[in-house]
């Protein structure tokens, strides 16, 4: 990461307004004259070679923008639809109260009118739709990229913000840069977070906000930028740049403000005082409306506790009051945590088994999966807590003895929540670091369902350590086989342990709930993992794929069907075959065909994000760290696309010939019939 320090601004030809970060001096002999060369790294990430010119003035020989190597956060922004201002869109954007007031007849006539306009537009654009098919697919390398969404939804905007405040907007089809901005130019800025404040709608262009800290004042500075043009987004009430004093975390508030339709955030400072961003009346109203069911919690990597709060409305001020707190045992710190994406669509509420019964999924968006690490000189354990963050109840607690980071500084513990599954990866050091202190509490913590369902190397290790453990309070050595490597544990949460049973209720509330049951399985992964992510699609029908960033500079995808806790041992029964489950094998085979990065090298992957395209089968995945890599993944193969060598021509010719043949045969048959009648 580029660290900020006191910067010296240099006046160098056209780069006069950038500030230096680092320089390297060099001298060469040019035409017998020693000339100075400076390799300069500027604060915004540009690297430039400056050479002493004729009149001892520094000229830039070349400059490269290397800021994309320090990406902090990325967000996808949907481009607007081409016919943005059609009547139908106007009608849809109309709020419900207005449409209820009109009488049904006028609404129907209005709808017919908008359909007629749509039909007109469709007919005029119809010839242009067939041109690409007749020409064949053409890859355009135009200079100008049309800033509208294409039919398949592959063209989106990827907005990335780097650590020094440089923002790039790249389009996802060919990776061209649409606009670039540096918001840290007037002060030392360290960007931390990028949020989409408003997804594009009909009359409202998409807006992104960059949250970062200024080293001068220590405040959090927020910049609001129009995502399509890169210009500042200013409204009457909120300026382009806002400063939030002493802000620690920002929390998205459910519900939108009516005026600008931007997201409302609750800004929490270190003393749990809450302000609303943007600080307008409508935003505060939206926040107050959401208050009765609004909770928040604080968790950070390296903390030894997780605390939950509720917001107290004291007239003008909002204060967070602590509601629950989970203090981790001694030496245990938070290693990683993950929640489910709230906007993720779930296509089916249960898992259909081979005998046609259903295991109902436990879908709770307030569920936190927490992985903690307890490291001492001789042992290293990873603990998994599954916590409901409204009440602070721990629904599941399991221990993975001997697990931890692969080496100091080499983070190996990653956790991810997808659908109703929790995926945890860690490095298993083997029995030599798996000493456990046997206490009565840890025994109770291991659920019976857990022990029954949890299989593989972990169970053998747990069982053997339980057997070997003598009286409580002893430190005992583990007698499991000496295997080291990366392992992945998959847990699936279901409402009830039996199939066809469900908690019958229309609403889900955390205060009146039955503890979910979990199915668990562990797999061995043959490579070093540096990051973890998942695909996502528009309707959630396609099976999900988990993407792993490998230390061998590759991006590898594993289908969730392989990481399935219901995989049977031994030969599959007829029911297992119905579910298409294949037998359990501990090792996830490395299949080079599943490399998302194929022959390319993507170095230093730290984060993987994904978004849906209009096609249900395809997901757009971006991996960034040192390199930035974007690809399209189709975990269930492209089931909604015709294959590339589809015979359009032969199909159309067959139809045409058939129609012509039928007409000819009809004519002759009619003639024969009439002749026969005259005989």
């Amino acid at each position, binding site marked *: 990461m580029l660290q900020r320090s006191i910067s010296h601004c240099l006046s160098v030809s056209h780069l006069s307004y950038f500030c230096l970060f680092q320089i390297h001096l060099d001298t060469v002999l040019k035409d017998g004259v020693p000339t100075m060369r400076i390799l300069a790294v500027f604060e915004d990430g540009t690297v430039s070679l400056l050479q002493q010119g004729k009149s001892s003035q520094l000229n830039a020989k070349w400059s490269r923008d290397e800021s994309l190597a320090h990406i902090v956060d990325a967000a996808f922004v949907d481009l607007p639809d081409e016919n943005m201002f059609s009547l139908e869109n106007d009608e849809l954007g109309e709020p419900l109260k207005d449409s209820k007031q009109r009488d049904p007849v006028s609404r129907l006539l209005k709808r017919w009118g908008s359909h007629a306009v749509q039909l007109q537009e469709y007919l005029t654009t119809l010839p242009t739709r067939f041109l690409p098919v007749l020409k064949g697919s053409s890859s355009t390398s135009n200079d100008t990229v049309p800033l509208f969404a294409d039919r398949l939804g592959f063209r989106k905007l990827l907005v990335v913000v780097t650590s020094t405040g440089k923002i790039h907007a790249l389009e996802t089809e060919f990776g061209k840069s649409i606009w670039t901005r540096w918001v840290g130019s007037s002060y030392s800025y360290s960007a931390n977070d990028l949020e989409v404040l408003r997804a594009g709608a009909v009359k409202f262009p998409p807006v992104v906000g960059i949250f970062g800290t200024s080293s001068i004042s220590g405040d959090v500075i927020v910049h609001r930028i129009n995502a399509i043009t890169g210009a500042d987004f200013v409204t009457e009430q909120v300026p382009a740049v806002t400063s939030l004093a002493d802000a620690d975390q920002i*929390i998205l508030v459910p519900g939108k403000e009516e005026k600008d339709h931007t997201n409302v955030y609750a800004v929490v400072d270190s003393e749990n005082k809450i302000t609303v961003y943007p600080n307008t009346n409508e935003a505060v109203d939206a926040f107050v409306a959401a208050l009765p069911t609004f909770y928040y919690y604080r968790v950070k990597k390296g903390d030894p506790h997780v605390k939950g709060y509720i917001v107290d409305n004291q007239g003008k001020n909002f204060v967070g009051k602590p509601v629950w707190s989970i203090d981790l045992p001694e030496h245990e710190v938070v290693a990683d945590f993950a*929640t489910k994406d709230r906007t993720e669509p779930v296509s*089916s509420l249960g898992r*259909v088994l081979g005998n046609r019964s259903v295991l109902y999924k436990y879908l709770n968006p307030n569920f936190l999966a927490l992985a903690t690490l307890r490291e001492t000189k001789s042992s290293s354990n990873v603990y998994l807590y599954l916590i409901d*963050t409204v009440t602070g109840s721990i629904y599941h607690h399991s221990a993975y003895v001997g697990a931890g980071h692969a080496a100091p500084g080499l983070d190996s513990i990653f956790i991810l929540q997808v659908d109703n599954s929790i995926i945890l990866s860690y490095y298993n050091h083997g029995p030599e670091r798996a000493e456990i202190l046997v206490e009565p509490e840890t025994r109770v913590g291991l659920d019976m369902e857990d022990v029954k369902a949890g299989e593989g190397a972990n169970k053998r290790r747990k069982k053997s350590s339980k057997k070997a453990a003598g009286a409580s309070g002893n430190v005992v050595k583990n007698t499991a086989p000496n295997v080291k490597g990366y392992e992945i544990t998959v847990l699936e949460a279901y409402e009830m342990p039996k199939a066809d049973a469900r908690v019958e209720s229309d609403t889900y509330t955390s205060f009146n709930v039955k503890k979910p049951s979990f199915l668990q399985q562990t797999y061995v992964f043959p490579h070093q993992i540096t990051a973890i992510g998942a695909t996502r699609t528009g309707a959630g029908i396609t099976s999900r794929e988990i993407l792993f960033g490998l230390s061998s500079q590759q991006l590898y995808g594993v289908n969730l069907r392989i990481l399935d806790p219901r995989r049977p041992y031994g030969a599959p029964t007829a029911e297992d075959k119905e579910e298409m489950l294949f037998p359990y094998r501990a090792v996830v085979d490395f299949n080079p065909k599943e490399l998302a990065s194929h022959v390319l090298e993507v170095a230093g992957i730290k984060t993987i994000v994904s978004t849906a395209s209009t096609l249900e089968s395809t997901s757009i995945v971006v991996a960034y760290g040192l390199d930035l890599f974007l690809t399209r993944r189709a975990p269930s193969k492209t089931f909604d696309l015709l294959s590339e060598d589809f015979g359009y021509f032969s199909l159309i010719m067959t139809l045409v010939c058939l129609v012509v043949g039928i007409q000819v045969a009809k004519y002759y048959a009619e003639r024969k019939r009439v002749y026969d009648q005259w005989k």
Partner: protein
Amino acid sequence: MTSRAFANTEQLDPKGFSFALASSDGSKSRGKEKEPTEEEQAAIDANMANLKLKKSWETALGPLKQVPMQAFMLYMSGNSVQIYSIMVTVMLFMNSGNAILATNQAFTRFETVSTDKKKKAAGNGNLILPKIVFVLAQCVLMGLGVYKCSAMGLLPTTHSDWLSFLEAKSVAEYSSHGTWVQ
């Protein structure tokens, strides 16, 4: 004498034959067709009605005789959804359905043909029970078809068939940790 001996069996007298000619006082009615007496007519009618009832019961229980054969055919067509099994099942349903709709037609030959309304009503009233039994027997055949459908897995009897109509639960609370910006 001979005809009277046979009157109680299935045999019907030939057309035009009357008891009077064969009776012992043939001298009185020589050369002239004498009408049978009232009680003899009643006896004839009773025999006919009896016969017809018997026959109608046979027709009513007829479908049940087809059950073993149809069951065997369904068994041979297998439990997977193939064109042959679907055809056999659908034929079974269609045949039973059509037969139920044509119940009255099946029983026309057992209706008493008479000008006397009272006799007619009495005769046809006896047919109601066989008709009901006939319909029920056809329903038994249809039941075979329904059983076959359930064996093929086509009936929506399990939870997985209604899963797509379930609505997701709405969550009452909202809890989030947001993002750290400091």
